[in-house]
């Protein structure tokens, strides 16, 4: 079986988010880049599925600055990697590149995180599925593959649903696809071997975008906190009832 895992290079979760002075772009100064945490669950799951001779290829749409993140994915256990040499512009353009590779490589399974923690579009996996005309299961918290079928558990509001899916398919995962404690942390051997694993750089096949980012705003600061004594909870109840009017 061939699995394609889509990874996005995103600011570390502890990053403070700032924008350029003219608010036209995200300010990348001082940012540490990591594999999108949602994608890391998908990658660890794919590597765990390797036992039966499955190959795992990671794909990233990004310029050369994303290569350290791709090498980390190889150190986690992917067999090889493909980088599409373009800065991602919108969900559609990223999905087109991924679908193009998935189509020509005849992958059985495309695994992604359910969204990226930077632009939060949550759109790429579903778009890839439709571009490939394949079934799509989102918000997966469990996955098993058996021949030409997968069994996926997806989170639904207030519960879970177990679904059988015909392969090839696109699955978007989240925590639960593997547990946090089962995320693969690269060891020295993995890091060393990642250096020699194949990383192919392809030029983009699509230049069309469907959405442009015009400008950005920071989140407005809240007013100063009002502290209430733990011995005077009546006051807290009064404030919530009369001032904030939320209870």
């Amino acid at each position, binding site marked *: 079986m061939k699995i394609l895992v889509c990874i996005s290079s995103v600011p570390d979760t502890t990053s403070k988010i700032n924008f350029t002075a003219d608010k036209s772009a995200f300010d990348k100064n001082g940012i540490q880049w990591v594999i999108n945490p949602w994608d890391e669950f998908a990658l660890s799951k794919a590597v765990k599925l390797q036992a039966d001779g499955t190959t795992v290829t990671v794909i990233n749409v990004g310029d050369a600055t994303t290569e350290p993140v791709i090498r980390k994915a190889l150190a986690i256990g992917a067999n090889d990697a493909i980088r599409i040499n373009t800065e991602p512009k919108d969900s559609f353009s990223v999905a087109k590149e991924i679908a193009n590779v998935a189509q020509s490589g005849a992958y059985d399974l495309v695994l992604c995180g359910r969204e990226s923690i930077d632009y*939060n579009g949550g759109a790429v996996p579903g778009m890839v599925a*439709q571009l490939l005309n394949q079934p799509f299961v989102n918000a997966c918290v469990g996955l098993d593959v058996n021949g030409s079928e997968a069994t996926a558990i997806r989170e639904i509001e207030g519960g879970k*649903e177990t679904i059988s899916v015909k392969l090839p398919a696109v699955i978007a995962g989240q925590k639960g696809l593997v547990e946090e404690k089962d995320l693969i942390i690269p060891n020295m051997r993995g890091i060393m071997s990642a250096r020699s694993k194949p990383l192919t750089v392809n030029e983009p096949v699509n230049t069309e975008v469907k959405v*442009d980012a015009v400008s950005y705003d920071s989140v407005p600061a809240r007013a100063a906190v009002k502290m209430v004594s733990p011995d005077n909870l009546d006051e807290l109840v009064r404030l919530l009832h009369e001032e904030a009017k939320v209870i």
Partner: protein
Amino acid sequence: MAIFVYAENINGIYKKAAFEAVSYAKAIAEKNGETVTAVSVNPTDSSDLLYKYGADKVINIKDDGLKNFSAKAYAQAMNEVSDGNIIVFPHTTDASSVAPMLAIMKNFSLITNVLEIPESFAPFQVKRRAFSGKGMMHAKAEAAGVIVTVSQNAYGVKENVASGSEEVKDLAVANEDTKVISHEQSSGRLDLKEAEIVVSAGRGMKGPENWGMIEDLANTLGAATACSKPVSDIGWRPHSEHVGQTGKAISPNLYVAVGISGAIQHLAGVNSSKTIVVINNDPEAPFFKSADYGVVGDALKIIPELTEKIKALKG
């Protein structure tokens, strides 16, 4: 021309997010002199519920092939019935699975997680959530048609009664790629993303045995319960309750955070809550800087007392 809305239902019952999406579509329609057509798959609820928020027409797709949710089959159904240039979805898990597939089918722009009504229509431009709530983006659609998903609780549910009409359609959509094997639904739990009040707790609760008091407070307030990431990682609470950057992003009217220090990743998922109350025994907890009201003290003593006082208020 009509603005189409995906009116999501769960087991036939409309979600609050469906009413919010209809309310949002109505606001757009009123600006443009258009009408609102809400589309729902196999609802059992009355269409009157959608007219109440401004739907001029309701298309009920009655189709056994769509008995179980499938993103692809639902997108096909939406594609068949919606012929407007603006389609509104709620930003629920199911709706935001359907919307990207529909955007490809229709060759439309897709703008997800929108927070407000559009800033302009030609071009279509709207403010959306980005960077997990640490920033916002003004996004412009480049295609002639646009699909938006409305961030839950961002616009709100607004009554605006229309005298609507109903059309029933049987589409006979094929759904051969996915098959539901089993379905587990916990009963009686409020949907965390839809809840107007959320009571959330962290490691400051000392152990899962103390969660009863969090549930008591939540029940008293009519709130959903949530937790911080460490708590779901240790297994005190299920992953589905984890709110934050890599959990669920929520925007309730009131967020009560108990024994949560307020790491930047947690704040990212909750800072669009309208009012935040922080209860923590550490006066230096960073969360106090992002709170509206704060109490420094022992949560295990404060929560039961607060619950009693709220019960008294509610009579």
